[in-house]
Structure formats: C-alpha cells, structure tokens
C-alpha cells in the first residue's frame, strides 16, 4: 500500500513515528493508524494513514483537525485518558465513529511517544467481512450442533465446566420429567438417586480428566418414579476455557425389568410363584454357616395329592397346589422362605429358630393346611407329612440340611400320613448308614461282588428240571449277607437298579454259556431273569439282545420275569416293551401274579407266556385253601398261558399243584438256589437231555 503525506517533512510528525507507521502499514492492509496529539489541553488527530482515511471516511484534512474524543463516542467524560495514557500503551475494544456517523466496532491500541504528548493509535476493525464470515460459520456450526442434540432421541447433557451443565436436550428433560432450567448448573444432580451420586461424581471426574467412562445410575423423575440408566461420559475440552463433558444416557429400566422377569422365571415356579428348587438351594447355601448356623428346614409332602389329580383332574390339582402355597405364605413368619421343591413337595426355611419353634411352625402349617378347600364342588382337606430338621454341628453343607428334612418327611410318611417328624440323632445316623450302604452297593455292583444263585424250576408232568431262576445275592464284607428285600429297593431308590439289572442279565447269560460249554445238552434249557419296574423302558429289549449276542445265546434261553405291579405302573409302555421282547424271541413271565390289581381284560392283550403263582397262594394250600391257586391256574389255562407255582415247600403241595394243573413247580423242597458251579454239578446229575 502507499502512504501519502500531505505535507512531507512536517515537523510535527517525528521521524520515529513515520517509521513506525511505515512498518505497521506494511504489516497489515487492514490497519488504520492515526496520530493523536495534545494541543491546548485537548487531544486532536494530527495525522492518519490511508487505512485510517478508508476506515473512517474522512478526508485527510478533516481528519487532521478532528478531536480524538469525536472518534470514540462511547468513552464518557474523562475516559479518554484511559485510552491515551502517558506512561504506557493501552488497549480497548470499542465503537469508532466514522464520518457518516456510523459506529464500527474496533480494537484500539494506543502507544505514547516518549514525550507523553503524542500517541500512535492503531484501529483494527473487528467487524470486517472475514470476521463476520467466520463468526457466521461458527454460529452455523453451533446451531447445527444444538439442533442435533436438541432433537436427538438420546438424552444428552453438555457441561462446559466441571459438573455444571450448560445444556440439556428435550430427551433428557422428558426422561427425568423436569424442565431444562431446573437441570442446568448443578440442578441435574437433584435428579440423580442419592445412592448413585458418588458414582456420578466419580465418573464425571474421570471424564474431566480425559477418560471415557460409563456407569449404571438411577435417575429420579419429578413424579417420584425411578429410571435405571447407563450414563456415558466423554471428555470435552474448550481451548482457553477448560474441561467439560458430554453425557449420553440410555434408559435401561425396561430391559432390566425384562431380564428380572426372566431371572424370576428361572428361579420361581410358574404355577405358585414360589421360589423353585434352584433358588432354595442358593438361599440355604447363602445362609449356611457350618457349625454356627441356626437354620431350620421343613419339608412338606401333600398326602394323597395323586388322588386329587386323578379323581378331580389336573386343574383341580393345580388349584390345590396354589391354595397350599398361599396358605404356607400366610402362616410362616416374615423373612421365612417358602419354596416349591417339586410336584406336591414344599420346603420352608427359617432362620434363628430352635427345634421346638420349628415343630411349632410345622404344627401351625398342618393346622392351616387342614382347613377344607373346595375343588370341583368337593371339599378336600389337604394333609401333609412334614419332616423337620434343625441345623446341628454335624451338618457340613447346606445340601445336607435339605436332604435331612427330606428323610424326615419320608419317615413321617412311613409312620402314617399327616405326621410331623423331626430328624433326630438316631434317624440321622440311620440315614447316614443307608447312604454308606448305597455307596457300598455301588462298589459291589462295579466289582461284580453281587453274585447270582440259580434255583431249578421243574416240569409238573415229569419232574424234570426245565429252567432256573437267577437270584441276586450280596454278601457284605462286614455286615454279612444282605437280603435282596433290602438291597433291591435300595438300588431302586438310589438309581443303581439299571446297573444291577444289567449285571444280573449279563451274568446269567455268561453262566448259561458256560453251562453249555461244560454240560452240553444237560445244561439248563432256560434262565429266568427278574426285571425291576424301573428297568421296564424302551432300553430293555436292546440290553437283553446285547447280552444274548455277547454270549452267543439263542433268545429262547432267557425268560424275563416282571412283577404284576411293575406292569401296571404304566401299562401302555409296558405292553410295548413286552412286545419288543417277544419279537426278540425272549419269553415273558408275570411274577407274583395275583398280588396286584391287574385288569384281566388287559392281561388278555399282553404278550405274556407264563404266570407265576405267588408263593402266598401256594402256602395256603397247606391249610386246605386251594381257591386262589386254582383260579389263577385255571385262568392261565383258559388264556393259553403256562404257570409256575413258586414257594413249593412240601411234596404235598407239589402233588396238589399237579392236580390243579400247574405247568411248572419251583421251591425249596424241590431244589434250593445254588451257585453256578454247584448248579453245573446238579444238572450233570439231574438234567440229562433236558432240552
């Protein structure tokens, strides 16, 4: 740019100022510079550059006579001295009046000359085009950002300084049900649940420190309701101002409620709403302190629930269970847990009670339950057998406590229904003993220490042995022989019956094969194997087939004996299993016939070869009562079935049974149970050409 001087060499403009003007002028085209001078106690403009002429709109001549205060209308009386200071430079942002009278906002910097009577005044307009454009762009950014957050459905907080909010959007206001002005500054902290306030402050501190953090925080709505949220905080830095944060909030109340519902469903019985077995186990485990606890468990089993289900239907059964659950809930103490253990079994857990208090609660429960319930038009009085256990020093784990009250309940049931039984020391020892026996039985089966004896079965016609029945025997190392009447039910209760059954089946087949090898044609033609009700499922035919195949035996060598009561447990599936066995070529006999409640019509359709007349009917023969044995044998004949009379203990009984038409005889008088080796010897003598 060029600088024109109207009077070059004017002595009122010192050389250093001219130099400074030239220097400054080359620095910026936007710079307007005037020189002010005190003349007769009044500050006047004595010179101006082209930038000043252009900015202020005065001709240079007019400018040179202008009082300085005229340029700065906003300076009050006397304030010009603040701008034109003798001892130092000064700076102000203020409006500058142009020739047209318009005011231009400008940054004015004054520098005094050493004499203190003259000042260089630099005027930089702050409202030039570039600045306006920059400000407009910044404003547009600001508006876009605020529109974005304002209309965003994501609740958003914006702090520009520490915890203090400068901005909240509508979504956050709706979330907490408060107005923006209530939330700005630190007001938003009133919407944070008191217990979560420390967490929020901690997280905001981390965000202010530059981290990105999140926390689960409960927010209080103005109406008092609570929303659970995840608050995420990100660092926000404004140069020259400091650190703040942006917070976004996700309302997870509904999601948590849904998850809680799922968790509730996993831990509660849908019918009664009571805690289920899983929750019970956890509840007791959480409160169980070995040796120091005072927990008590009550195990309830409804008596005759099956009768209600079978006679009045499952809906009535469900109604009864719901009613029982309600009564249990109402009768226990606050804080006691009532759980549905399964089926018609319930467990109550109490803390800080002794045995008399636990029994008293059990009595209250049975009394409450005994009130009649109307189901399907019938009044039913629910009774329960209750087992009670109070924690002792001997309970090593929570599960032992529940197991003990289960045992106590079974004892109550066994002692007659509707009773309350406390599991005392003796009963507990018995139960422990039983547990030990179960463990030993498991070992005995694994080691094949359960052995078989074989009792011959004879043809009535010619007295020849036609078969043997395999009988399992267990001789305990310490306890001596243990009756099958003890260990077979034990195996059934403890899930060992499948293994025991397989052992008997396999050992019988192995023995048959060995007899074949040793005795040839004199070997027993067939062996009868007893099958428990619990083995009577779809796996049985395959297990029999495998055992036969393993020992290369013909299926006709095996007869499966199933008790009448086992068949009647689930007659339909039993019939399918029997058919499958028959298809294999295996014979099927019904054991203990006449002691159960079989439907004769049903019996006609079962694929059965033989009925075994129960030993109780055979025993009656000795007292002249032939009626039942005779009827059973006659029934079998009319259905074209063979019969085996069990428990024949005298020759008279044998003769009588022969007269009644029994096909086969089995009993102590005719042939005792023998080991496999003894049986081989016996058959070598008695059984030549038995087949």
């Amino acid at each position, binding site marked *: 740019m060029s600088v024109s001087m109207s009077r070059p060499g004017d002595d009122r403009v010192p050389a250093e100022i001219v130099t400074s003007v030239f220097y400054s002028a080359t620095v910026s085209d936007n710079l307007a510079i005037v020189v002010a001078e005190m003349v007769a106690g009044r500050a006047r403009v004595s010179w101006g550059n082209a930038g000043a002429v252009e900015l202020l709109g005065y001709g240079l001549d007019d400018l040179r006579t202008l009082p300085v205060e005229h340029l700065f209308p*906003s300076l*009050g*009386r*006397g*304030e010009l*001295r*603040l701008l034109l*200071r*003798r*001892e*130092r430079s*000064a*700076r*102000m*942002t203020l409006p500058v009046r142009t020739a047209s009278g318009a005011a231009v906002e400008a*940054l004015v910097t004054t520098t005094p000359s050493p004499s203190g009577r003259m000042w260089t005044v630099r005027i930089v307009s*702050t409202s030039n085009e570039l600045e306006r454009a920059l400000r407009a762009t910044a404003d547009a950014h600001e508006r876009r950002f605020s529109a974005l957050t304002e209309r965003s459905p994501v609740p958003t907080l914006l702090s*520009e*300084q*520490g*915890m*203090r909010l*400068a901005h909240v959007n509508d979504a956050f206001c709706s979330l907490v049900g408060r107005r923006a*002005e209530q939330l*700005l*500054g*630190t007001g938003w*902290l009133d919407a944070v649940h008191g217990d979560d*306030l*420390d967490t929020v*402050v*901690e997280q905001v*501190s981390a965000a*202010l*420190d530059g981290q990105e953090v999140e926390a689960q925080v409960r927010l209080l709505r103005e109406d008092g309701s609570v929303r659970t949220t995840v608050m995420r905080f990100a660092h926000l830095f404004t*140069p*020259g*101002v*400091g*650190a703040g944060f942006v917070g976004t909030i996700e309302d997870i109340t509904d999601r948590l409620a849904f998850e809680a519902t799922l968790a509730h469903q996993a831990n509660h019985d849908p019918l009664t709403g009571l805690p289920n077995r899983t929750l019970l186990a956890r509840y007791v485990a959480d409160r169980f302190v070995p040796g120091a606890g005072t927990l008590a468990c009550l195990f309830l089993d409804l008596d005759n629930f099956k009768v209600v289900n079978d006679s009045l239907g499952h809906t009535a059964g469900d109604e009864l269970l719901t009613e029982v659950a309600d009564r249990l809930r109402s009768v226990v103490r606050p804080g006691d847990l009532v759980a549905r253990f399964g089926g018609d079994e319930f467990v109550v857990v109490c803390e800080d009670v002794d045995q008399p208090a636990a029994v008293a609660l059990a009595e209250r429960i049975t009394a409450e339950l005994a009130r009649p319930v109307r189901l399907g038009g019938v009044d039913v009085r629910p009774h329960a057998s209750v087992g009670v256990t109070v924690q002792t020093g001997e309970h090593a784990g929570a599960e032992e406590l529940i197991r003990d009250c289960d045992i106590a309940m079974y004892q109550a049931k066994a002692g007659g229904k509707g009773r309350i039984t406390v599991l005392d020391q003796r009963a507990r020892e018995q139960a422990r003993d039983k547990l030990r026996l179960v463990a030993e039985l498991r070992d005995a089966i694994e080691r094949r220490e359960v052995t078989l004896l074989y009792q011959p079965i004879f043809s009535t016609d010619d007295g020849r042995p036609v078969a043997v029945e395999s009988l399992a025997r267990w001789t305990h190392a310490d306890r001596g022989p243990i009756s099958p009447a003890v260990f077979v039910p034990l195996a059934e209760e403890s899930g060992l019956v499948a293994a025991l059954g397989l052992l008997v089946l396999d050992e019988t087949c192995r023995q048959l094969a060995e007899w074949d090898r040793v005795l040839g044609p004199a070997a027993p033609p067939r062996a009868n194997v007893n099958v428990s009700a619990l083995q009577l499922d779809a796996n049985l035919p395959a297990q029999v087939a495998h055992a036969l195949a393993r020992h290369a035996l013909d299926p006709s060598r095996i007869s499966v004996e199933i008790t009448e009561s086992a068949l009647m447990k689930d007659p339909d599936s039993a019939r399918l299993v029997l058919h499958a066995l028959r298809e294999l070529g295996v014979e099927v006999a019904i054991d203990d016939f006449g002691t159960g409640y079989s439907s004769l019509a049903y019996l006609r359709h079962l694929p059965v070869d033989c009925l075994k007349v129960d030993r109780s009917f055979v025993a009656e023969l000795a007292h002249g009562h032939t009626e039942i044995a005779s009827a059973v044998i006659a029934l079998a004949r009319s259905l074209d079935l063979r019969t085996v009379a069990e428990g024949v203990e005298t020759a008279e009984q044998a003769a009588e049974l022969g007269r009644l038409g029994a096909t086969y005889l089995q009993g102590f008088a005719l042939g005792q149970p023998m080991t496999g080796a003894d049986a081989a010897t016996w058959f070598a003598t008695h059984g030549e050409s038995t087949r």
Partner: protein
Amino acid sequence: MTVTPLPPRGEAAPVFDLGKVLAGIDTMAAQRPVAAQIVSVANSDDTSAKVLSRILASDVALAGRVMKLANSAYFGMRGRVTSLQFAVTVVGFTTVRTMATVALTELDDESRLPEDFWEVTTCLALASSVLAPRFGERSQDALCVGLLAQMGAALLHHDDPEGYGALVAEHPGFAARRSAELHRYGINSVRLTAVALEQWGFPHAMTNRLNQVDDAASVEGGLLRAAFEVAARLTRDDHEAEPVTRLTCGQLREDDLVPVLDQVRADADELRRAMLGD
C-alpha cells in the same frame, strides 16, 4: 493524585486521576507476581490445567482458594477434588483467572473494601451465573463477571475512602450510585472494572457485558442489571424492588426471580468463604 472532598450537588467534578489508579494496579501486580502471571496466561488458547496449576502452586493462599471453590456446592463435586490440577479443570480457566485478579487487586482484604463488598459481590456472581442461560450466556463467564463487577468500586474506595464511603451512603441504589460515581470521578465503578479487565486482556465478550449495564436498551446488559437487582433485594432491607421485566428488556418476569433468590441465598456464604479463603 489529588482527591477533593465529595462536593455538594451541582459543583464541578473533583480532580481524579484515573491513570494513576490504573497504574496503582500495576504496582499491586508486582507484589503478587503469581497472580499476575495467571492473569496473563489463563486466557491463552494453548493454556492447560497442568500449566495453570503449576503456576498456581507457587501461591499457596490462592491455590487453597481454588481448591475450596472447586469443592464448593456450586461446582457439585462433593469434596472429590483433591489435586490442584483437577481443581483448575473443575472451576475452569476463566474462574482461576478471576480469582487471581481478586488477589491481585487485593479484593481479598476486606479491611480495604467498601462495606458489604463481598456480600453484594457473591450475590451478583451467583445471580449472574444462575440467570446466564436465560440470556444465552455461559454461566461460568457470568459468574466471573459478577465476581469482578465491583472491582472498580473497590479501586475507587481504595483511592478515596472517605469520599467514596459518603457517596455510597448517599446512594444506596446501584444505578444511582453509578451516576454519582460518574459525576464525582468521571467514570463509574463498573466501567472502571471493564477498562481494567480489558487492559489485562480479559475477553471483550466479558468486559462488554460490564459496559452494557447502563445501556437500558441492551438485552445483554440486562443480565448484570438483573443480578444487581437480586443483590439489592438480598442485601438491603430498604431496597425498593425494581420491575425485573423492565430491567431485562422483557427477558425475565418476577416469577423467574423467586427460585434464583432462594438459590443465591443458599450458596452465597460458601462462595464468599471460598473466594476469601476463610
């Protein structure tokens, strides 16, 4: 400088050397170099909490006040601020600078201040801060403007204790007092604050709010006018309330002031203690 006793009305203005008053501030700055350094660097765009806290650490009294303020209810940090750097982050650079300015101009020495100075100042600051969003202003900046607005009054008082004391007694209303100040000193106290702050490089956006306080048509000036009104209602029993709608060019209604008065009353004492390091 020459100060004449307060003249009767209508008399000529007294001789009052503003330049000397401002120069006096420079002398004060020399006595509080740390505060002066903070005033000069705090506004720079490339400053950081780390830089500021490092400088601040050399002035134990000032650092203590910043810590106290950061943990005050106003900032909502519930005592979590344990480091100076974090305290600077929490209160913000402008506030740190404001506190340094308070120290620099000896506003923390109540014996040298007009009566009720801090009582009024804390009300002004908190009212400005609370009302700022209604005027589209940042609360933090408004707090700082409020804290410093009376600095000019302190300077006038310092320079002319008797004369200024009499002036205050005669003009308890803030607006009337500013007119009297202008009449007596050629400049009113708020304007004097603005000039001094501008001299130290405080942003024009801040100083301009001070300049606009007596422009009745200025909406921006309405914030400080409303803050003065809140301060008057809270600190003076004999104050006759002025309609806030008129003071704020319609930005506020009387109803809006009710929660503000409560909030200011609740927080004022703590802010005063933090600022003075009591």
